[in-house]
């Protein structure tokens, strides 16, 4: 396990359901006067302002990957396109990936874990999900047959930042309702209300959501506890437990959890106090793919373990019980 210290190109993923305003946001980022050279990878042939940027379009290609006991899906088209962009490395400050409205963000994120060339050259900065304030609730509540994914829900679950767009078309009550629905899926991602995707870009760029060394900065409201709405199968479970963790027990538990339930756990992240270590241990995962490292020193701060899981069929009691068994005095 190593820290992330090399100057890699930041990559921002913009996702969101059909008509939510993804392309509007993308065009804003491209045309704003920020002085950056940006490359864009898009899967829908929308009207993207090019200006001083390079736009590459491609069809999504989902590949199954089996590396030992780890099974995941990745985006084969992104692997080859990012590889090609890296051959122009000195010409781009940032890469934006705009997915289709029906995209599953998991393969996009997992691509950055799995391919070593991409991992070494690029840093996944954040997944930004754009939600239509007017129609998004219907999308989130749409019932699907068992085993069939609701892409809108998945896109919210995976988000590091959420742009709640077109709020001018809603009243206070409608806005509160959709915010509550979003929160029940993803309790931690900041929500930015917008009209024509007019969010301050500094809120969306350089988030460092996938940089374990900066995980404390990335989510200041990480682990906000909320009332959970029923009827949505994807929820967040946050744990906050004082004490110190026995590293071996943690590895055993997390390894079993992610291999058995990895398909259902979309994302997780945490900051842990490991017995015998004076630095915080930060980690994040996407399904079965896990990345962690020691970060800042605890110093005089209280050693509290904080974790959040976002996924399907999460059993809060069991997660709590199994996690507490990893504590020094847990068995």
């Amino acid at each position, binding site marked *: 396990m190593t820290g992330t210290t090399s100057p890699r190109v930041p990559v921002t993923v913009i996702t969101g359901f059909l008509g939510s305003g993804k392309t509007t946001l993308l065009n804003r980022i491209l045309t704003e006067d920020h002085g950056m050279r940006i490359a864009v990878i898009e899967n829908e042939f929308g009207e993207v302002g090019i200006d001083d940027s390079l736009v590459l379009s491609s069809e999504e290609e989902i590949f199954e990957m089996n590396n030992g006991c780890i099974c995941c899906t990745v985006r084969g088209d992104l692997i*080859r396109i990012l590889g090609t962009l890296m051959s122009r490395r*000195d010409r781009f400050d940032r890469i934006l990936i705009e997915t289709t409205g029906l995209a599953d963000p998991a393969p996009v994120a997992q691509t950055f874990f799995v391919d070593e060339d991409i991992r070494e050259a690029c840093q996944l900065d954040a997944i930004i999900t754009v939600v239509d304030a007017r129609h998004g609730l219907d999308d989130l509540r749409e019932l699907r047959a068992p085993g069939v994914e609701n892409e809108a829900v998945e896109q919210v679950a995976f988000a590091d930042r959420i742009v709640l767009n077109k709020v001018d078309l809603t009243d206070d009550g409608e806005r509160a309702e959709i915010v509550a629905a979003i929160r029940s899926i993803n309790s931690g991602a900041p929500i930015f209300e917008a009209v024509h995707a007019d969010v301050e870009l500094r809120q969306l760029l350089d988030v460092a959501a996938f940089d374990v060394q900066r995980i404390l900065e990335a989510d200041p409201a990480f682990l906000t506890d909320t009332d959970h709405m029923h009827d949505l199968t994807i929820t967040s479970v946050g744990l906050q437990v004082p004490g110190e963790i026995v590293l071996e027990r943690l590895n055993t538990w997390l390894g079993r959890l992610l291999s058995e339930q990895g398909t259902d756990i979309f994302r997780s992240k945490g900051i842990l106090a490991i017995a015998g270590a004076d630095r915080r241990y930060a980690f994040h995962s996407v399904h079965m793919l896990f990345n962690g490292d020691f970060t800042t020193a605890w110093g005089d701060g209280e050693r509290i373990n904080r974790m959040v899981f976002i996924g399907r069929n999460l059993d809060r009691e069991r997660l709590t019980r199994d996690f507490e068994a990893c504590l020094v005095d847990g068995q």
Partner: protein
Amino acid sequence: MSAPISVASAGPAADELAPVASARLADGRLAIVNAEGRLRLWRDAHESTDALQVECGGIAVTAHPALPVVCVSGPQGWALADLGAAGGPAPPEPAVVIAADQGSWSACARWSPDGQIVAVGADRWVVLLDPTGVEVARIGPLASTVTDCTWSRDGAILCAASYGGVTIAHKRDGSWPADAVDLREFTGSLLCLALSPSSDWLVSGNQDRSLQVYRLSEDTRLEMAGFTRKVTCAQFDTSGRWVANNGAAEVTVWDFSGAGPRGSRPFLLDDHQPTATCLAWHPARTGILATGDGRGLVRTWDVVDGRPGRPLRALRTPVVATGAAVRGLHWHPTGGDLWAVHADGSVHRSRGIR
């Protein structure tokens, strides 16, 4: 005592951009293309000219086996270019684009050994073109974007790689009928292909850090796993006995003699960081391999001197050592010299290598 190697080098021009691919022409010149599709032609290590700019960008370039014609393939299509004859007192003819196509992702292009056809990946298709750029056949669609293709020695078999396996097309009565195409399935992303001179062994390097070995006559597949990185280079030597592949700090060399590599221990060519980026077997001497790595080291090896399972020492200290990753290695057809192309645009031509 080994004869000294002489190395002539040239650094990048002031505005040189990182090369992504290179090919050696039959007349000995070296064509280098960058990601933007700018093609530069090197006559020797101190003399190069900008040949032309193609619209498709650059991912791969392949040279005709006899003519000064190359096919460049890139993110936005492909281009066939006549680079003009080399040598002579008269000024060279300017390079011209013979034919081009834009719009499809084209990651690979390979001339058939007889120069009659160039196979070009175009999204999920392999397009077969004659030397004037006229399409003569089209194979596919494959399961995903074509990543590599390779010809049999007689030009009668074309293998193409993509996610999901290898598609093998057979030439019949001068054409490429759809019913003469079969698929050898493998659930994974195939990145590179190599076909033995006998056309019986097919090797693929894969995203999942494995090497898959197919014996076509027996319809069997053998997996070599355990590499630490994806396998992006795999090559048979000209005799067909040896296969070298990257995918770890060691270049692995397998012995395909007899019944093949099943159950055998490979030769290990140590210390490529983080892995070998280029491999090139000597065109005339069996078992001599040139390797280049991410640190810019170019070394040569004689696997015949090695012992299976044991690290093998390079023939000599690095032929070339720069800080920039090796992007291409090209032997002269007789093995008299070796060109190395580096990511910073520098080019090194070495003579006197064993």
